[in-house]
């Protein structure tokens, strides 16, 4: 007596999604820690010294979080209005922040009250940064000016009034204390040299510039504005290298991975994209719940911190190596499991005689019904099959299983019986499934037969139920659209064929004289296109 062979679920190749080294690397983060802030998180900055605390600027406060704490270790609240751009100095001792009230405040990380207050701007200051010599501060403001301040004297050193719109981003060079770049809503990026009192280089981004990033080598500059991310070669006088358009809303923040191999961009479209910096292709993608305003990566990519418009701060920590290896390890520690495996891990000795226990076959619900030849019930259970995915604890439909069961019923010649005799609810469930999956090329051959059968069975009751009628109309619409698509595709295929045919060189058949004299028929070879087929 052979055991029941369960229904074979066809494994379909996953199209598009390939598991690469990058996906493995970027997926290796724990579930995010989410912290509610008082307002939209506009800026996040990591301290350059260990333990790499990070400053989060949100609404009228700047919070400093430790690497693993979920509560702020320090809070700066002495802002009269919305704070902007809280940034650490390179020694991690001082922190500067702009404010809506145009005053720039400098804090000691240990203290509470501002050490210095720089007054001079007339409008909100969105950009603040320390120069690389650590004694000066760069600020950029909505009054179209950017200024340099001296920290010890608390005096303004210089004012640059070249931009014609709000200045919303800026970076200072880490290698040269005199160089800094600002980006403005007037679509331009300007490189300033503190030794002369005007800009030395201007680049046109074409969109209001939202974020700037300098490569560690400082030969390349990345700017984000509108939907574009652009890379400029500073050593070639600001020549544009690449323009990337991978987001469908404004890109708000840029960030570089620690090894400099990957570039991250965050956007209002709720995605963070990871680019390879050698070919600028997107290698990975993160999804978030709301529009992203700020993004930062901890040193060594230990964590990804993202601030969103809904005032949520999301922190993802990297899994430690042992954690990523053993997910089931936690379960093994549970006592119930230990009871379960009791005696099973006993290794038989040399002379022991192993009495094997008959293995009980576990069957899925629909297989149990199929085994009993309950075809209608089997189809019902298959339609309800959903899978619990561990990552999100949400229920996902698995159309493969339902389609496999329908195929199996068709093979048994009982699909008609299984489809017939349904009430309005059962039929609408079936039609719902068809509407969802009929045009999927993987399932179409099976589902088309099923759809035909359903129409044959139920054509006499059409018009009795508004729900079913509506669904049938939707199905019809869907099919019409699909037919149009197919027609278009065929046209395109025809065009491509024509082009290939004209592009391929005509090849003569190599045929020796002997064979020709032998009267053997010859023809030109159609060395047909060698197409690679994905299996």
């Amino acid at each position, binding site marked *: 007596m052979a055991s029941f*062979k369960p229904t074979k679920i066809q494994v379909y190749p996953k199209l598009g999604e390939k598991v690469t080294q990058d996906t493995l690397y970027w997926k290796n983060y724990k579930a995010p820690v989410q912290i509610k802030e008082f307002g939209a998180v506009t800026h996040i900055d990591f301290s350059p010294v260990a333990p790499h605390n990070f400053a989060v600027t949100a609404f009228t406060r700047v919070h400093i979080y430790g690497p693993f704490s979920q509560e702020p270790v320090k809070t700066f609240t002495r802002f009269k209005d919305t704070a902007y751009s809280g940034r650490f100095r390179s020694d991690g001792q001082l922190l500067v922040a702009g404010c809506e009230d145009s005053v720039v405040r400098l804090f000691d990380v240990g203290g509470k009250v501002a050490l210095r207050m720089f007054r001079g701007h007339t409008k909100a200051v969105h950009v603040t940064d320390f120069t690389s010599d650590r004694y000066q501060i760069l600020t950029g403001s909505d009054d179209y000016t950017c200024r340099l301040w001296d920290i010890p004297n608390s005096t303004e050193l210089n004012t640059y009034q070249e931009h014609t719109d709000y200045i919303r981003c800026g970076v200072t060079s880490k290698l040269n204390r005199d160089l800094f770049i600002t980006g403005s809503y007037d679509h331009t990026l300007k490189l300033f040299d503190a030794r002369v009192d005007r800009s030395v280089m201007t680049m046109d981004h074409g969109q209001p510039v939202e974020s700037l990033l300098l490569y560690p080598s400082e030969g390349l500059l990345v700017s984000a504005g509108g939907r574009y991310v652009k890379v400029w070669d500073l050593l070639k006088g600001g020549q544009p290298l690449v323009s990337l358009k991978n987001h469908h809303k404004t890109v708000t923040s840029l960030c570089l991975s620690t090894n400099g191999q990957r570039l991250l961009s965050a956007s209002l479209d709720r995605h963070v994209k990871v680019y390879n910096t050698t070919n600028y292709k997107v290698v990975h993608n993160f999804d978030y719940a709301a529009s992203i305003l700020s993004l930062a990566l901890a040193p060594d990519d230990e964590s990804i911190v993202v601030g969103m418009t809904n005032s949520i701060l999301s922190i993802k920590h990297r899994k430690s190596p042992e954690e990523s290896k053993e997910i089931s390890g936690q379960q093994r520690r549970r006592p119930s499991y230990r009871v379960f495996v009791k005696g099973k891990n006993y290794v038989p000795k040399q002379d022991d005689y192993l009495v094997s226990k008959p293995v009980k076959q576990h069957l899925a619900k629909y297989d149990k019904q199929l085994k009993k030849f309950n075809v209608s019930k089997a189809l019902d259970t298959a339609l309800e099959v959903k899978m619990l995915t561990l990552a999100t604890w949400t229920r996902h439909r698995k159309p493969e299983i339902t389609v496999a069961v329908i195929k199996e019923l068709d093979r048994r010649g009982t699909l008609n019986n299984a489809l017939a005799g349904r009430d309005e609810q059962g039929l609408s469930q079936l039609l719902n499934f068809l509407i969802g999956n009929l045009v999927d090329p993987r399932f179409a051959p099976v589902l088309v037969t099923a759809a035909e059968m359903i129409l044959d069975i139920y054509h006499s009751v059409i018009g009795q139920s508004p729900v079913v009628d509506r669904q049938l109309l939707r199905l019809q619409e869907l099919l019409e659209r699909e037919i149009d698509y197919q027609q278009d595709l065929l046209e395109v295929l025809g065009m491509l064929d024509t082009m290939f045919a004209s592009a391929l060189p005509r090849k003569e058949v190599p045929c020796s004289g002997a064979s020709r004299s032998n009267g053997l028929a010859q023809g030109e070879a159609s060395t047909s296109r060698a197409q690679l087929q994905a299996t």
Partner: protein
Amino acid sequence: MVEHGDIRVVHRGGSKINFRKPVITNDSRFLLCASGESVKVFSTSTEECIHDLRGHTDLVTGVLIKPSNHLQAFSCSADGTVRLWDFTDGILIKVRLLPSIVVCPVLSVSVSSQSLFQLVAVHLPQSGDQLVEARELSAVLTGISSNPAATVFGRGGEYIASANGLQLEVYFFKKQKAYRFSLKEDNKKGGKNTFTCVACHPNDDCIATGHEDGKIRLWRNFNHKKEYTYSTLHWHHSAVSSLSFTPEGTNLLSGGIESVLVQWRYNQENQRDFLPRLGAAITHIAVSPDGALYCTSHSDNKITIIQSCVKVSAVIQGLVKGESVGTDLMIDPRSKSLVLNGKPGHLQFYSLQRDKLLYNLDIVQQEYIHESGLQQFEVVKAAFDASGNWLATVEERKQKGAELELNLKLWAFDEQTQSFVLNTTISAPHEAQITGMCFSHATDSQTTMLVSTSKDGHFKAWQLAAQSQTDGKQPSVCPCPSWSCDFVGAYHGLVPECCSFSADGSLLAVSFQEVVTVWSPASWELLTTLSQPPKAIRNLCFGRLSCSKYLLGTTDSNLLCCWNLLTCSLEWSTSMDVSLLLADPLSENMAAFCCQAGCTDLFVFKPSEPRPLFSQKAVCSGMVTRAVFAPREEMLESCEESSQWLNRSQLYFLTQYMDLMTFTTKTEEERLMASSKQLVIDDSVAMTPFYLLLGKHRQQQQGGDDPQSGVSAERTPLPQGSVAIKELLQTPAHVLPSTSFLCSMFVQSLLISVTDSSKHAEEEMESEKEEEDSEEEIESSRTRPEQQAAVGGGEAAESAAPAMTKAQVRELRRVKKLDHSWLAGLLDS
């Protein structure tokens, strides 16, 4: 030894064992079943074939245990004889001739004349002759069904029930009266009332009949014409093919195409036990006389032995024969077994040397639904690569009005489990049916390549994906390499028919109707085209070894062509209607089966020589479409020119009627006969410690005995011997001779006599010869006095303790003699 190059066509293995109902012996240890022209005796515990009772010259049509002696069995055959066998020793006892064809053995036998079947009673004449002609025939019933399951004896042979069509006929022997009951042909619900089988209750007046529509009717009160009654049981959804009552009559067993054995409780018919998924449709059900075992024969040439607690205990599987072999006959390069379609959706691996099914490989891996008229997945193509590491299979299912479902599966050989494991499944590899498939034969090349041709006008090359994806960086992503398409080729939109790789794998020939295209698999360049109009190419074959420059093809227009690939020209062609062309993988030889006037001729030739090596007219009737060269385990050393081609490999072929045939030479047959004699397994006595002691004892005595001088008690056939031993062991100790006496005898018997050995061998030779000559005579004449002697011995031992029996006296005398010879041996040395 004189070599005879006589080549004969013989049946080889795989005969049907499910043709007739098998019979279980009274002690449930053996199972007898008709198998082709012989009766096979299987052990129910080990599934081994113990004896092959040969003697009939035509199909055996029935086997039955002799009711008066349960160690003997009758068999009847279409050659018109009934034979009586001693199945424990495999000895033919008697032959009876019947004037016409015998169909079924139900104590009396039914005889057919032309198409009309008649049940006749045969009086078996009591006579000492071995060959008896039975003349007394009396017709009992006429116009019975040809199916023996439709005729059965009831309640100790009081009446006989026979069903045919829509009519049940019961004949009472005492009253000499027949009653007929007929059913209406019921078409209201599509039900069909035609009778299919009949069974009678052993102690109750009840007849169970099975019907075409799956119903079982239990008839009672059938000794009245009018007042008969019947009740109906219904579980089967299609025809009931077999019914059987258990010996006590407590249960009724039924089976049909659903391949579920149903056990109904008699009188409590709503209680049923099921044994589902027995593998194939049940054709016969038999129950052992003690009720301990059931056995079911199945349509896939299988006998399942089931314990009465409805648990399968053993399966005897023969070569599975379907209606057609979709896959060609193939040889598995590893096990050297024959591979062909087996059970639906399976490939069977059949060992030709041992005539045994090795295993079935489940290709389709789907639950088989036993229902007639259902379109199932069928394995249509299969191919092995040269080393046996890869197996490619194609399964297809064509449903009316639906798309063709095709799957190409590639199986890798797993060293650990010693079987094939699924590696890659390619669904819909082509848009239409696959017409041909072959692996690249080159054994040394790194990559294995598979080429498949299809009716969609393309041929595709499949290759094992390069390991580059798994270069250490991410070993967990893709642990084993899988197959993918490498090249798609076409030629003028013509349909490719067959493909063939050259022996070194450097050339691929694909035939597109009448054009043969030759490609280079390395660069996928079309090298040349060869053509011989006007008809399509049927077979394509590269020469091997020294003839590898030749490409041979056969066309539909009765032409066999041989092209020389070096000159790209036609070397020779001849007009022959070749149905199959084969190349021997181990030599240059090619075999061509030609169909001529309803008969098939065989030609074996070398492409380089104009004269065929061997030809035989009328190998078999009908067309041969499947054949294979199987490599031999050891080379034959025949120097005869005409049989040299059989030295390295053997040619097997399937006839139109799915019989597996082969060519043998005389020397080979002799060798086979010799080996089969050695291989007889003595399974009749259980291997207890006593057997080990006493059995050895007996063997030595057998050797020491002079066959001409008197008969010793031990030299009896096995059953009698075992009786004597039993008697010896069961007799109370106080009536036996003193232990010291027995012990000394026993110890003596254990001593090895040196001088005996040479004499021993001679005697054995002699006795063997004699046995061959007059085996039956000796047996029939000897058994009785021996039995008497044994019984007498037992009685004597029981009656008077000190008095020695005759046998013991003889024993003593013999021991003396033995002793003497042993002494003499000592002196000599």
